[in-house]
Each structure stands twice: as structure tokens, then as C-alpha cells.
């Protein structure tokens, strides 16, 4: 089961779960995904150790999509 999670004050929160053959769950995950991007989060998919990609549309095939806040120089 694929998951959309957001890193937050609780550690992380699972916002949606879906499988490739569950269209309704995938659509709900896509809605949650867009809401989080509009709220200012960035979505990242890990691509093996040492690599990650930012995505702007929910990748249905991904196992885990992580939402993060922006970073800035301190």
C-alpha cells in the first residue's frame, strides 16, 4: 500500500493511502496531495539511497511520497 505522509510536529502524519487498482483511493490521495502543495509543502519521492525527486503530481506508482516544508539558510 502506497502512502502520502507529511512531516509535522507529530513526527509525521499519514494523509492518504492507496493502491494502483483502487481508483477512489488514488483520487482522494491526489486531492490531499494538491491541498498540501497549495499549503506550501513540497512533495518528495525517494529514488534509492542518496537520491530523491521533487514531484508536482502524485506519482501513483510510488510507495512513499513525503511532504516537507521549505528550507532556508539560517
Amino acid at each position, binding site marked *: 500500500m502506497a502512502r502520502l*505522509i507529511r*512531516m*509535522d*510536529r*507529530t*513526527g*509525521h502524519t499519514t494523509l492518504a493511502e492507496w493502491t494502483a487498482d483502487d481508483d477512489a483511493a488514488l483520487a482522494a490521495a491526489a486531492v490531499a496531495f494538491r491541498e498540501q502543495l497549495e499549503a506550501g509543502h*513540497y512533495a*518528495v*519521492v*525517494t529514488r534509492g*539511497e*542518496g*537520491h*530523491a*525527486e*521533487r*514531484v*508536482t*503530481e502524485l506519482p501513483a506508482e510510488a510507495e*512513499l511520497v*513525503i511532504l*516537507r*516544508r*521549505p*528550507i*532556508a*539558510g*539560517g
Partner: protein
Amino acid sequence: MTTTALPETAAVAWRERVDERALHVRGRLWTLSTSAHTVPFVATAGVLVGIEPFLAPVSALALVHAWAIPELYAKRGANVLSPHRRRAPVAPAEAAQRTALGLLGDLVGHAARDLHARTGLVPERGALGVWLVGEAGALLVRPGGRRVHCWCVRADDPSLPPADRTAHLLLALREDEHGFATVANLAFSGARWRVRRRLAPRMRGALDEAGRMARGG
């Protein structure tokens, strides 16, 4: 759809994107700057003793200055990894930190997970060298292991538990290493041994390991 450039670089559009050449130049400039601060004191110490041996105490003071200035800069660099710099309004809940640690552990390999448990820092090989990622900053150990760049950078949410703050930086680094170095503020560049002495004792092992990795180990 996937994108490659770190979006946060748009907020620092005036900065030149950091690459291998830019890092080399900045390292040289730091060395030049340090020399400009210390050489006059050393020269003054030598001249004073040469003119009048009774001025040896004044010469010693000048030498202390020459020693202290690079040390202060190195301390500034080491401070980027200090958890005390965190500006969280409240202490993170233990449960939140445990949850965050689980996610961070899933993002890295066994060796990195072990090093993080011992030192609080996550090592990450990159194209520019070996990174040590902390809660509010990162060190970049350059290939060869002799020079370290200290970067001040943080996640823009003070309520995050510490492990999540590290995960934020790690993910951004993995998305776009050059963009990450562009967004971050360079606090110090200099000798690894100088930074090591100013790190918290528990973190020194991580810098040793990063140095070993940067030497090809």
C-alpha cells in the same frame, strides 16, 4: 511530473549556483581571509621581539590573537551542528521524535542509522564531497578529507521534532545538492581538524567517519 532544481533557490536568486569551481574559490577566499587576519599579528610579534626582547609579553599577546581568530571562526562553523541553535517554541514530544526517527531511519542505510544514533548526524555521499547533516546545518567534507565547509540551513518550521528537521535537510540535499549548498549560508571553510576540536565530543566521531569516506574509504 518530477523537477530537479531545489525550489528554495528562487528565494536566493542573486546567489551564484554553487558548483565545484565556486566551492574551490570560496575555500581559497576563506584561507586568504584567515591569513590576512593572522599574518599581521605573527609579523608584529616577530618585529617586536626583534626590536626589543623586553617586549616579549606583548609579542605573546599578538600571537594569542593570531591563534584565537581562526579558532573563533572554526567555532562559528562547528556551531551550525549545535542542537542549541534550534528555535523551537516548545520541547519536542518524545513520541513525535520517536516517529520522526523511524522515518529518518527508513531514509538511510544501516551504517548511517547507526552513526546518527551515536552522534546525531547523518552522513551522505554527494558529488561535492561527504555531507554530515544535522538538525540546523550541515558540514561538507571535501574530497581528500582535509577541508570542511560549514553550512547553516534549517527547515522552515520550528515545531518539527529534531529528527524531522534532519530529514528535511537530507531530502533537500538529495533532491539537488548544488541547490542545497546555494540556499545554505556558509559559516566557515577551513581545516577539518580545526572544526573537529570545536565540535561537541559526541559529534567528532561522525566527522572522523566523514573524513575517512572523503578519502575514499
